[in-house]
């Protein structure tokens, strides 16, 4: 019926997980509570780690196991934990983003998926890896992360979007090339971890200076000042 039948169960499962990763990005767009948002983000990290582990198994690239474990601890546990603690510490347990434009944003997200499909097409056609079809998904996760950042007003949501972009990039590396060289992956992971910690520091600074985490209120610097 289609190309799927030629793949064994592990590979089919990888495609399914890739689809779920994409779904988790949409779930983030739909989630308006900050705590829920962080939770979905954690799920995305876990899905990513499982996918990476399966790709390692199916492709025989053992260094991907290390990436999978690293991703699980970093993006599935540690960073969500940091963000969650930040949310609690800043007293934002019940904070919500406004629901305005939720549906148009989701539709725009679907448009971005189509766009990434066309952008990734030349790459996909050249690839011989069984994961090639998920390259478009990884680009879509990157773009959806950007959409999340643009459509949200709370600093925490924007950071989740930022981290989700990183997830998409990692995913792209895994599915397009079975991961980057280890030294690069370690460097990127280090950067992401430091970024997560720094974001926490900047949250506290924003909070201390303007008494809210609504980044709409960060509007002192603009070209139209008197």
């Amino acid at each position: 019926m289609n190309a799927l039948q030629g793949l064994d169960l592990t590979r089919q499962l990888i495609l399914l997980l890739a689809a779920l990763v994409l779904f988790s990005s949409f779930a983030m767009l739909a989630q308006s509570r900050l705590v829920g948002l962080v939770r979905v983000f954690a799920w995305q990290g876990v899905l990513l780690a499982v996918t990476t582990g399966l790709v390692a198994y199916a492709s025989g690239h053992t260094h991907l196991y290390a990436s999978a474990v690293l991703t699980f601890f970093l993006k599935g546990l540690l960073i969500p934990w940091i963000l969650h603690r930040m949310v609690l510490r800043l007293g934002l347990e019940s904070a919500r983003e406004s629901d305005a434009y939720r549906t148009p944003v989701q539709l725009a997200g679907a448009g971005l998926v189509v766009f990434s499909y066309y952008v990734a097409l030349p790459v996909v056609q050249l690839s011989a890896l069984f994961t090639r079809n998920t390259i478009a998904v990884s680009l879509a996760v990157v773009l959806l992360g950007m959409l999340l950042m643009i459509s949200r007003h709370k600093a925490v949501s924007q950071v989740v979007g930022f981290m989700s972009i990183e997830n998409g990039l990692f995913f792209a590396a895994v599915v397009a090339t079975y991961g980057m060289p280890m030294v690069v992956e370690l460097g990127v992971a280090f950067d992401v971890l430091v970024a997560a910690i720094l974001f926490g520091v900047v949250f506290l600074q924003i909070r201390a200076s303007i008494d809210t985490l609504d980044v709409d209120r960060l509007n002192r610097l603009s070209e139209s000042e008197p």
Partner: protein
Amino acid sequence: MIAVYLTLALPLAGALWLGAFGHRRSAGWVNVAVSGATFGASAAVAADVLRGGPLLSGGRMFYIDAFNVYLVALTAFVGFTTAIFSRPYMVHEVEAGRVNARRMRLYHSMYQGFLFTMLLALSTNNLGILWVAMEGATLATVLLVSLYRTPESVEAAWKYFILCGVGIAQALFGTVLLYFAAARVIHARDEALLWTSLHAAAPGLEPAVVGLAFVFLLVGYGTKVGLVPLHNWLPDAHSEGPTPMSAILSGLLLNVALYAVVRVKMIVDPALGTPLAGRLMMGFGMLSFLVAVLFLHRQRDIKRLYSYSSIEHMGLMTFAFGVGGPLATFGALLHMTVHSLTKSSIFVTAGHAAHIAGTQRIEQIRGLIRTQPAVGWGLLLGTAAIAGFPPFGVFTSEFLVLSATMKAWPWLTPLLLIGLGVAFGGLFRHLHPMVYGERPDSQSAVAANMLPVAVQLALVLWLGLAIPGFLAHWFDQATHLIAGATLLGGGS
């Protein structure tokens, strides 16, 4: 080779040491000493490369050729002079109560950390590490932008973090795509991201993928270069952070980001076989140049004014690298150097001016020459240099770029000329009252070490009057690497 490792190890060690003891009164001196030693090491590297050609470290982790070695030396030099300026400046800030001891520790540590990431980005042979270092540079400087903890500085830090983070993410995607293209040709996985391997294999890379990768890389690193429309973070971060940081951001970070773009272009051009990369750079460069020139006129903050001037010049360099060919490339390389030297000295002087007036607002900075002639003249000469007055080096490089444009794209020359004219007007209408004008009673001179400024401006002047032979040869080698031909026929 040891000199290369030393160039990297010194700032790293400095960052760690100052992270622990950066709050001591001696920390400023340590900062100067480490930066000076780094500059010494980088000079040794430069001597090695000039004498013996490109260096490739064991394991091929680091690669130094004529192109990046002069940036390594320039980076270490500006880092050194800015450190000299930073010591009394930051002491003044502590005395004024704007910064406490803990933040001084952060400041000193991150100053060296930033230099480390810059030098790592320049010397690494691995495009992945290049990305890691560029992101690391953002991380190192975010907390410096918000050092004063004012609402404005925190806002600037947030914008800087988010915009640069998102922007540079695109570059990682481009890197992945490049790796993808390379993995089809280069079979050793760990080598497929090495610039040397990529450069050797470039003609065999798949054009469609490489073209796509370049778009992502240009957008990503272009954000850090400050290309319009991704430039919003730049004036904020420059104006709200401490002045030494503005100087090294403008003088170094932008250069290194542009270096990354050009490095990638060197791979992309032979792979594509079309001038797509150059055209894209020309478009973005020209847009940035023109937009920044117009924004110069409406600035009210002295550091914002000069950061828009940075965008303007980075746009011009991007444009020149995009035009390609030996003449434009030589001009762009020279422009990178003179802009770096001039702009960092301008920021240093502007920092002093802000101390004198007690504010960064242009309308309250008046009569600098009467208050403190050294600062007033420094600002005047620096601005004259950056505006492209002969006989400063900026004039020479801009002249080269203009001639190259005249040859290749005659109809773009008027745009450049008009832009330069408008920029001149924008700078001087603000500068004139600041330098001359009536001296307000409240103003008094501050302790200022104008030596680095004098040295840098003298260098710029020297480069404008006569480029010394070894330097011309050096630039020519770099031009040969990038454009495939030499300008002066020196060969390499």
